[in-house]
């Protein structure tokens, strides 16, 4: 199956970022150049396990007579490995990168929640937590793919060390939540504070279904992420993609804060009111900090 969703390249391979960096007279994005050792270590961890994304499939195939039971088995295994959210659906073209093809029938999404309490530690703490979670997801997806291959079914892990799949369309289809104004998917328990790893496979399983609980209607009137974005990068208007509302972040306005500075910017996700249910005190403390700076982050940030 051929993909239809463009993936924006990272770092200087992204033509928008490259143009903006060169306009400042630099040759590298400050955010990517100023990588702290702890972040380097996390990035190295998913590069190291990338060769294990795919591999030998056990010639003796475990017969699946009850796909409900095998689905429960896979989900239990993922939870045992550390997943906080797990969902399964049939692979569709919008879930695959444009220019790539994936022949597997199903995709398993495994997410690990970030520790939201880190937001009070500032951008460095948030970035370290995000990278820790990404590294855990890479490990989890790799081990789950190996587990399925040992059952005699093809399986490939997709994570920061290598991927051909798109997170948002998969998250939606497996029922993790709905797409929010800030461009990330919102789950009612974890907000948008979680990171993914994926496994594509031919192991026959029972699909989960999309689940809507009012996020897109809420985002139409909330605007907290939009008002807190230091670059005014979050739009008022939305477009429709595959029948779903989608607010497209203006990268020209986002990058000066998220890529041209050394520090991480994760504010749009951190200030989302969907964090309040799971972390009421931390959310209130963060928003008190935000109020003190007039919600808009000062340009010196």
């Amino acid at each position: 199956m051929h993909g239809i969703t463009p993936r924006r390249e990272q770092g200087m391979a992204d033509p928008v970022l490259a143009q903006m960096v060169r306009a400042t007279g630099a040759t590298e994005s400050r955010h990517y150049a100023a990588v702290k050792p702890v972040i380097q270590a996390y990035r190295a961890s998913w590069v190291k396990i990338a060769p294990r994304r795919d591999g030998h499939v056990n010639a003796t195939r475990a017969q699946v007579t009850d796909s409900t039971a095998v689905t429960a088995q896979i989900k239990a295994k993922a939870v045992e490995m550390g997943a906080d959210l797990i969902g399964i659906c049939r692979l569709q073209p919008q879930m695959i990168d444009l220019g790539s093809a994936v022949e597997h029938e199903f995709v398993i999404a495994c997410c690990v929640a970030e520790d939201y309490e880190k937001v009070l530690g500032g951008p460095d703490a948030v970035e370290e937590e995000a990278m820790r979670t990404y590294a855990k997801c890479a490990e989890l997806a790799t081990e789950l793919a190996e587990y399925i291959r040992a059952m005699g079914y093809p399986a490939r892990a997709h994570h920061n060390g290598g991927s051909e799949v798109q997170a948002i369309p998969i998250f939606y289809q497996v029922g993790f939540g709905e797409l929010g104004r800030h461009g990330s998917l919102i789950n009612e328990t974890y907000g948008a504070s979680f990171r993914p790893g994926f496994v594509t496979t031919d192991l026959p399983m029972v699909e989960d279904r999309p689940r809507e609980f009012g996020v897109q209607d809420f985002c139409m009137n909330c605007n907290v992420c939009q008002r807190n974005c230091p670059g005014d990068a979050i739009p008022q208007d939305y477009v429709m993609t595959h029948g779903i509302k989608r607010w497209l972040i203006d990268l020209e306005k986002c990058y000066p804060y998220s890529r041209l500075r050394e520090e991480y910017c994760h504010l749009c996700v951190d200030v989302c009111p969907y964090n309040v249910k799971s972390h009421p005190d931390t959310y209130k403390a963060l928003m008190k900090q935000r109020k003190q700076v007039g919600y808009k982050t000062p340009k010196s940030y």
Partner: protein
Amino acid sequence: MEKLYVNAVGPDGEVSTVGLFYSEAEAQRIVDLLRANPERPAYRYEIVPAERHTLSEKNTQRTR
């Protein structure tokens, strides 16, 4: 920077926005890749300047 939407128009006329791009060359590269997709021969693709992009449901209904 220039801002351009790439839209996919399905055989039933429904418009689905593929993404926001920042140069004609970047948008055209995406359109070329989409057109090369053997599984969607009935789709057509358009590049629309952001300021002329008709938004949301209006957009979906425009070609219905």
